[in-house]
């Protein structure tokens, strides 16, 4: 493996660097904290001639995603980034991107939703776009933001896939943190990422009708075939992760494990809090506790098999959500995990916690508390929503 030297870089800039190395054709974006550094850097690259791309400074996120639809449908490699309210404003457009099978890659710097207004991180924005039909991958740090953005293009644009891809980075905790990381050389990226070839681009020499409407006798079948197609991208996603490992030495998996061997209690996180959870696991292991950590990397398509396998031998599973489902079941991740395990004969007791909302920091003690409280709640059935790191 020929590695470049380690550099210090902000997560946002690492993502922008991946987009540059992917030699993207079109970037259409609108500023919103905490995503702005990504697109500012891309605009700067275009302005300096470091990146030969069209940068469309659209007048809203709705138009950002709409311009991405047009660009991708014309056959161009297309990127955008957003967060929070911006993702909400894109909402209806996101369904069209997946329905039309346009492999746009989007960085999302996860942000809380108004109101109250908060520019800080949580997963409320992500969870509201859960069912938009995008492939969704979580990066936990700057290195992963770089790596998984490259994987995103490779996965989405493949002819067997042709789905848009969101690469989630937690607002501020990843987007604004300078971390040591390894980049890749242009020729390494070129060997990993072939040029995008849209099978039916908008082209007067071969006219296609894109975006027809479907009557009731057809709509269900159209949605079914789309859902089948998204589900069946799973093997290829793992294949791309393996290929990327060959290139970089960094192996990603749909569900990742940390010190899970012989664990009776497992924490489950998604996003940047996994790193603090790991520290908590280390401390608990030092005290002789059999505790491990499961991280969901691939949020969609949901990794049912890997998740079931990962938790089958533990007694207690403690899930952290960074989003509330007001007056509903425990957080969305916890609900999905529970639903995925319901059919299993052998399954752990599950306890759900909600925390880290709107940029509220959680530290090692909170994770240790979640493990301790979680064991109690889970043994009691775990139906109550418990919040962690909250006053009053």
């Amino acid at each position, binding site marked *: 493996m020929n590695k470049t030297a380690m550099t210090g870089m902000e997560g946002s800039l690492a993502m922008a660097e991946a987009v540059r190395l992917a030699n993207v054709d079109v970037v259409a974006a609108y500023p919103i904290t905490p995503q702005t550094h990504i697109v500012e850097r891309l605009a700067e690259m275009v302005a300096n001639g470091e990146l030969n791309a069209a940068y469309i400074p659209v007048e809203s996120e709705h*138009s950002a995603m*709409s311009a991405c*639809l*047009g660009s991708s449908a014309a056959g161009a490699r297309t990127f955008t980034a957003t967060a929070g309210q911006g993702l909400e404003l894109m909402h209806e*457009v996101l369904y069209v991107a997946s329905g039309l099978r346009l492999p746009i890659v989007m960085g999302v710097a996860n942000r809380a939703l108004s109101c109250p207004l908060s520019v800080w991180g949580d997963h409320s924005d992500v969870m509201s776009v859960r069912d938009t039909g995008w492939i969704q991958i979580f990066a936990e740090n700057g290195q992963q933001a770089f790596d998984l953005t490259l994987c995103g293009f490779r996965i989405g644009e493949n002819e067997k896939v042709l789905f848009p891809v969101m690469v989630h980075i937690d607002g501020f905790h990843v987007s604004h943190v300078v971390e040591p990381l390894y980049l890749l050389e242009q020729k390494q990226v070129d060997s990993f990422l072939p*040029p995008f070839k849209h099978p039916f681009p908008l082209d007067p020499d071969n006219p296609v009708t894109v*975006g027809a409407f479907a009557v009731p006798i057809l709509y269900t079948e159209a949605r079914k075939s789309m859902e089948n197609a998204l589900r069946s991208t799973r093997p290829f996603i793992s294949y791309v992760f393996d290929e990327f490992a060959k290139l970089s030495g960094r192996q990603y998996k749909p569900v990742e494990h940390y010190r899970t061997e012989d664990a009776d209690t497992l924490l489950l996180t998604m996003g940047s809090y996994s790193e603090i959870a790991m520290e908590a696991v280390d401390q608990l292991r030092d005290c002789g506790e059999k505790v491990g950590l499961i991280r969901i990397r691939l949020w969609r398509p949901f990794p049912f098999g890997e998740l079931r396998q990962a938790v089958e031998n533990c007694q207690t599973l403690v899930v952290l959500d960074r989003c509330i489902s007001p007056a509903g079941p425990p957080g969305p991740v916890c609900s999905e995990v529970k639903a995925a395990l319901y059919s299993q004969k052998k399954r752990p007791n599950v306890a759900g916690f909600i925390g880290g909302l709107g940029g509220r920091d959680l530290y090692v003690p909170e994770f240790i508390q979640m493990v301790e409280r979680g064991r109690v709640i889970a043994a009691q059935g775990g139906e109550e929503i418990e919040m962690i790191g909250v006053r009053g």
Partner: protein
Amino acid sequence: MESFAVFVPRLVPQKDYLAPGHRACIGCGEALALRLVMKALGRNVIVSNATGCMEIISSPFPTTSWRVPWIHTLFENAAAVASGIEAAQKIMNEKGSRTNMAKVVAMGGDGATLDIGIQALSGAWERGHDMLYVCFDNEAYMNTGIQRSSGTPFGAATTTSPAGKVSIGQSTWKKNMPSIAVAHDIPYVATACPSYPFDLMEKVNKAVATKGPSYLHVLSPCPTGWRHGGDLSVKMGRLAVETGVFPLYEVVNGKYKLTVDFPKLRPVTDYLTPQGRFRHLPKDEVERIQKGVIREYEKLKKKVEA
């Protein structure tokens, strides 16, 4: 791209790029306008179509009326989608991954253009994309059942501006979209009507030849929404022009020019009376409309003479 200085019947291309057999109502003036626009555009185009009547009549899966590449995504974003197509084409040609350049044409109804999509359109104009935007103005949200838009004329009854005991129907004056286009300093803006097919097609050609954004605002009689006979659509368009309700003009680099003018305008009643949507109007309101039309026409003439 076919190019002809003047459209006369003998020279109009036979080929249609909007195929017959679509599902528009009988006598639909908007479908006629679209067909003429497509005829004049020729084959080297990519169309971005907003949701609305023209999209719905032409694209029930798995059939299509479109003989050119066509994309429909949503109601309010045709101009933004077109921005993406235009930018993609340019950069791909520059980078060598694509070797043809089509004219990008976005289109939508008055609702898509004057109301919900005005922001996306304004953004596209301001950024200066090389694209034609065509508004097919039938003066209401027809696809969803004749609801008022900001393009609905004063006094017209629609399903959301109904005439009633204490209402004369639409109580606001039609938004002047061409002047909003002109305010963006784009190089070519024109009004047109399918009742004047050669004038319309010439304007399409001029718009296509224009580098940068161009805007065509096409009054498109809708027998279903205006409540007149399907055989009267062409006549309604002519009356709209001859009464001064909808003057035909173009604005080239800010310079206004009437492309059809009359020594004397017909009274607006000629236009209003055959249409069910105005039938409830009392005399004084008709008089008010007449005055409004004269006032606007005079304003336009001043711009032409300026």
